[in-house]
């Protein structure tokens, strides 16, 4: 009897609070009328308009392109760096990790305007490159703090053992160390990717000359008032997120490890 009871009403209430706005948004994305709560009929027209909007389509393209390049480069650099940090003296690695934490601890706004100031200071032209650099800048720390704890659990003697048995250093790395890091590297990439897709503040301040991502496009649309196209866009993104999570979950042996990584970032 005890097993089948519902979660406490407070927990249910929180879930309603968290999901209600999203569900309302999805419902309205099919509403004929432009504004207001009145239901005036079912339509797909906002979706059709959304896919006719050149600006939004371009922003979507930039979002995915930047997220892909930034997260991939960050994963490469972050993993190699984590490997190096493992062999640094404690003081040096402590300092580097503190600096590495700064973008995670500083408010986005401060990171954003400080980068913007740097770009101005260096007289760089705002656009794709500045945006990409900014995304790489805030993605690498996530990769490092995801990969490093796993790397630290691997004994340093494993490399030596592999090499004693005749493996070249590269071989030892690829065949012994890397397979053990695979899971955390994938997680690091995913975290960097989602952070990049989700970012607004830093992108807003570091882009220019017509390059914008989804968040910036939404922001400029939302500033002008309620626009049902945004509802349609939100619905698509929400469904995409759920699909992505389902796919990731299916490919994972244990959810526990994901939660542990998420926790590691939260409690950092």
């Amino acid at each position, binding site marked *: 009897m005890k097993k089948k009871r519902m979660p406490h009403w407070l927990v249910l209430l929180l879930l309603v609070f968290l999901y209600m706005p*999203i569900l309302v948004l999805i419902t309205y994305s099919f509403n004929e009328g432009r504004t207001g709560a009145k239901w005036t009929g079912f339509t797909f027209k906002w979706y059709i308009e959304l896919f006719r909007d050149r600006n939004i389509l371009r922003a979507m393209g930039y979002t995915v392109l930047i997220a892909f390049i930034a997260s991939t480069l960050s994963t490469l650099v972050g993993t190699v760096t984590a490997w190096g940090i493992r062999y640094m003296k404690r003081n040096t690695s402590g300092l580097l990790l503190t600096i590495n934490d700064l973008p995670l601890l500083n408010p986005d706004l401060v990171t954003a305007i400080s980068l913007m100031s*740097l770009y101005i200071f260096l007289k760089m032209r705002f656009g794709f490159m500045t945006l990409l650099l900014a995304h790489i800048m805030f993605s690498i720390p996530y990769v490092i703090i995801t990969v490093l704890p796993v790397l630290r659990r691997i004994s340093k003697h494993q490399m030596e053992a592999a090499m004693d048995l005749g493996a070249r250093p590269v071989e030892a790395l690829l065949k012994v160390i890397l397979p053990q890091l695979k899971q955390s590297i994938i997680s690091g990439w995913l975290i960097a990717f989602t952070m990049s897709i989700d970012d607004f503040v830093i992108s807003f301040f570091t882009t220019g000359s017509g390059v914008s991502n989804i968040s910036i496009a939404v922001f400029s649309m939302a500033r002008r008032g309620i626009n049902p196209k945004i509802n349609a866009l939100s619905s698509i993104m929400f469904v995409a997120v759920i699909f992505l999570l389902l796919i990731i979950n299916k490919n994972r042996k244990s959810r526990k490890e994901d939660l542990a990584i998420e926790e590691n970032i939260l409690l950092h």
Partner: protein
Amino acid sequence: MKNRFNRYAWPYALWAGLIIVLPLLVIVAFSFTKDGSFSLDGYKLFFTPLYLQVLFKSLDLAVKATLICLLVGYPIALLISREDSRRKNTLMLLLMLPMWINFLLKTYAWRPILGNTGLLNSILEAIGLGKVQFLYTEGAVLLGMVYNFIPFMILPILSVLDKMDYKLIEAARDLGADNRRVFFKVILPLSLPGIISGISLVFMPSVSTFIIPVILGGGQDMLIGNLIERQFLKVGNWNFGSSISVILMLVILSTMIILSLFDREKRGET
């Protein structure tokens, strides 16, 4: 052998110095200059009633949001931690899912609900109560903060409660403590690290946000984040903008120091 590998971290150290540390130094330098020479004008300007009021309003709203998140989030974390592990995982996933959704879109989602012709007002009108101005008020901004950041309060607390040794509670009970004492003497002190990271994870983004006031506050509620954005993007007064940013950083740094003192004190006791 060992020392050969640490060189792999040096390129990143160089990069981090250039793109993480240098920009912050540039901001600090900007904050102390005017027209290229040393000046405290930015700070002097900030410490006038007009701008201090903005700082106080930001602090006020952020503290309120943090308190609401803590008071609502803690019981919820406690309730979830008592579920069996399968359901706990499901609930945690449900809490995390909204974190994956674009922050702007989540905030924007409240507009059709709070608007003057929105869902809430239609319901109020249908049951005979008049219209209420929800959108573009301070309350809406507060709601936006709580809505966006409450998972950041619940999850750290939950993970600490989850790792807590249940035998300690049993021991306290065996020694005659009632529910209240078990909670205040055992559970609460042990969950303090989670509370502290929850507080900083809610307070920091709340005090520095500038999107929520723009989307839900109609730009009337000028918080410190809006002030910084405006100085950099609209007014073009980077020196003043930098001064405000340095002050914001100091606010956050001091909060973190205070919080870590709390943490250490507790750890020192045990």
